[in-house]
C-alpha cells in the first residue's frame, strides 16, 4: 500500500463528507465570540480575574 495511494483514498473519501455543520444554529460560534467579548471587558483577564469590575459597594445602611 503506497503512501501516495493512501493519500488519494483519504482525499476521495473526504470529498464525500460534509464540510459544514448539520446542527441547528451555530451556537458554539456565539459562545466562542463571547469569550473574546468577556476578555475585552476584562482589564485584568490575564491576572486571572473573570471581570475587571470593582466589587459593588454595599447598600448604605438604612435609617436607624
Amino acid at each position, binding site marked *: *500500500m*503506497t*503512501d501516495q*495511494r*493512501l*493519500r488519494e*483514498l*483519504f*482525499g*476521495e*473519501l*473526504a470529498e*464525500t*463528507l*460534509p*464540510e*459544514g*455543520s*448539520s*446542527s441547528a444554529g451555530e451556537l*458554539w*460560534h456565539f*459562545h*466562542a*465570540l463571547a*469569550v*473574546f*467579548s468577556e*476578555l475585552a471587558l476584562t482589564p485584568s483577564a*490575564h491576572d486571572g480575574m473573570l471581570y475587571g469590575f470593582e466589587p459593588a459597594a454595599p447598600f448604605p445602611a438604612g435609617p436607624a
Partner: protein
Amino acid sequence: MRDSEAFEAFVAAWRPRLLRAAILISGDRHLAEDVLQEALIKLARRWSKVHTDPVNYVRTTLYRDVASRRRRRREFVYEEPPEQQDQDTSGESDLKLVFARALARLPVKQRAVLVLRFYEDLPVGEVAAILRVSPGTVKSQTHAALKRLREVAPELEEVLI
C-alpha cells in the same frame, strides 16, 4: 488584526478541513461536530497562548476528545454518504466504501495516525507532537494500522500495490 478577527479568520479557513478530519477519526458526523465545536471554544479561551499554532492545538484537542468519548461508547459507526447509499455502484465508489469500512475496524489511535499522516499529510514528528506520543510510536501504529487494513479488506491490497 484583533484577536476575535484572527480567530474568525482561522475558523473560516480551517473549519471545513478540521471537520472532515474529525469525521474520519471518529466515524460519526454528529460526534465530530460536537468535539470540533468544543475544541474551537477552548481555542477561543486560550487564543492568547496558542494563537501561533492554533491548528495543532485544535488537532490535539480533537483527538483527545474523540478518544475519550469513544472509550465511553466503544462502537464505531460509519455513516455512508447519502448520495452513495442507493445509486452509485461504480468500482471507485465501492473502493471508498471498502476503505471507509476498513477504517472503522481500526482503534481510534490508529485511525488518528493514518488521518494525520495521509489525509492531513503531516510528517511523523508533527503527528507525534499532536498525539503526544513518540515518533517511534507513530511509526509502529502506522505499520499496525496498515497491516490491519490489509487483513480486514484484502480488496485494498489489490489496488494499493
